[in-house]
């Protein structure tokens, strides 16, 4: 073996071996498990059919009766609410704070939610929506509205978690959009102002299009986070009450480590993995297609 190859082995091999043994092999094993029964016999897609038809994953009765709707729908709902809200908040805050005195301090405050462990984030969310101590009820109390522990009621548990997680995650898009704004040359704005463009026009014709690469990244990272959400739900509601705030990652844990059904848990893990890979690959493609 020549010296160059020895160096390659020295630098790359330890990392690759660990990766293959402790990440790649488990992933392959999980995929295999999803096609086997508990005795190890091949059952094709039977596990998938049974999991997708189970009430924990998809509960059609929920559409007429209310929560729970099943973990899969809950994740989709999380995306439908959390993604646009954090994006719009992040974009508008980063534009607002760019020209505000102390803007960087405000950004740091908003970013604090991202810095803390998500298990603490979940505690903070239960706190925010608590009956006696919660900020939400303190505010509603000003108008004499009746209060409750929002995370403890089926009809409001999931939505509380989702809006609480907006509070946690907005800092991420603020930081990314702020970094993106720094890259837009000032001349663009000056030229537009000379041409008499109004602030809204400048925002929609210059800022938003030039931030497109950042937006792609924000969407990807936020989607990945929403699909993987686990800690907050675990500590704040444990998916309850009665499954009303259950999510896929938690259901996977419950199948595997509470019900000790590795095959069903593998199905949920594979569904999650395919979703995250789909999101990740579309990021790669859009980065590649980007003419800039």
């Amino acid at each position, binding site marked *: 073996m020549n010296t160059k190859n020895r*160096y390659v082995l*020295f*630098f*790359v091999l*330890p*990392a690759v071996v*660990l*990766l293959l*043994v*402790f*990440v*790649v*092999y*488990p*992933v392959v*094993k*999980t995929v295999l498990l999803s096609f086997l029964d508990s005795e190890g016999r091949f059952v094709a897609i039977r596990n998938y059919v049974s999991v997708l038809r189970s009430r924990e994953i998809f509960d059609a009765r929920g559409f007429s009766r209310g929560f729970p709707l099943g973990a899969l729908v809950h994740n989709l709902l999380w995306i439908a609410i959390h993604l646009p809200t954090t994006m719009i908040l992040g974009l508008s*805050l980063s534009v*607002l704070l760019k*020209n*505000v005195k102390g803007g960087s*301090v*405000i950004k740091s*405050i908003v970013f*604090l939610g991202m810095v*803390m*462990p*998500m*298990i*603490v984030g979940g*505690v*903070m969310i239960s*706190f*925010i929506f*608590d009956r*006696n101590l919660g*900020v939400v009820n*303190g505010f509603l109390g000003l108008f004499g509205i009746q209060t409750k522990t929002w995370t403890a009621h089926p009809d409001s548990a999931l939505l509380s978690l989702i809006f609480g997680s907006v*509070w946690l995650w907005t800092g991420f898009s603020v*930081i*990314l959009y702020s970094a993106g704004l720094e890259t837009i040359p000032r001349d663009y704005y000056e030229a537009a102002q000379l041409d008499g463009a109004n602030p809204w026009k400048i925002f929609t014709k210059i800022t938003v299009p030039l931030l497109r*690469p950042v937006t792609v*990244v924000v969407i990807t990272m936020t989607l990945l986070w929403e699909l*993987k959400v*686990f*800690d907050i739900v*675990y500590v704040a509601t444990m998916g309850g009450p009665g499954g009303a705030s259950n999510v896929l*990652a938690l259901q*996977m*844990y419950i199948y*595997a480590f509470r019900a000790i059904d*590795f095959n069903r848990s593998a199905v949920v*893990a*594979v569904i*999650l*993995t395919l979703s*995250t*890979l789909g*999101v*990740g690959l579309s990021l790669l493609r859009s980065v590649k297609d980007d003419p800039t």
Partner: protein
Amino acid sequence: MRKTFFTLLGWLVALIWITPFFGVFMTAIRPLEELLNGWWRFESFNPSLKNFVGALNHPTAGLSKGIINSLTVAVPATIFPLLLGTMAGYGFSRYKFVLKVPLFVLIVITLALPQQTIAVPIFQLLNAMNLIDSYLGLIIVHTAWGIPWITFFMRNFFVTIPKAMEEAARMDGANDIIIFFKIVLPMAFPAIGSAFALQFTWVWSDFFLALILIYSPDKLLATQRIPLMRGVYHVDWGLLSSAAIIVMMVPILVYLLLQRYYIKGMIGWSLK
């Protein structure tokens, strides 16, 4: 006029965002009787550190032990992946070799994986290796899990720095391993700082891997003790708030001390 309005609006946002932190802090330092009508009322105000002491010395989920345990895991689980990932990132940036592209694609793919994907097999694997409920096992898994993003991050850094210094050293007869440790590593310090800040924070904050791999009551990490402190039937908010503050202080300190590296890492991690 308009500027004042925007400044006020900005600070209003900051106020909204910081209020829960303030509330948790008030709940932690004040006795329960004072909180019944809301922590925002101050007719009487008798702060004490009683709840913090209570959380640190909690009989079943004491955080002082939890913090020591978490550090025991977080320090090696930051250093090992940092070293191996930096080496691999350098390898990918400087050499051509068989399987280079497929291996790199593999690394990028693993970046998106949820931990749930490896949970059951990793549990069985560590069980077979007698590494379940052991910090060594958890550290190995954190190392393997951290390697892809650190490799990716460091490779992106190394491709941007010129090779002139390394080539000069090679002319002088230094071999590649010496060059890496003596010349490249010092130059890579800012990037390593970013990777350190993020990896340490993430390992400290990890809950899921600890949850499935560590179960002896005295071995539980700090994050695992938070749900236990919550109680089953009623929530002792004073205790829980103090525990939340204690556990979040460590990553917040890392963030405040290494802010520039932290933000750079966060942006580089996702914008590259």
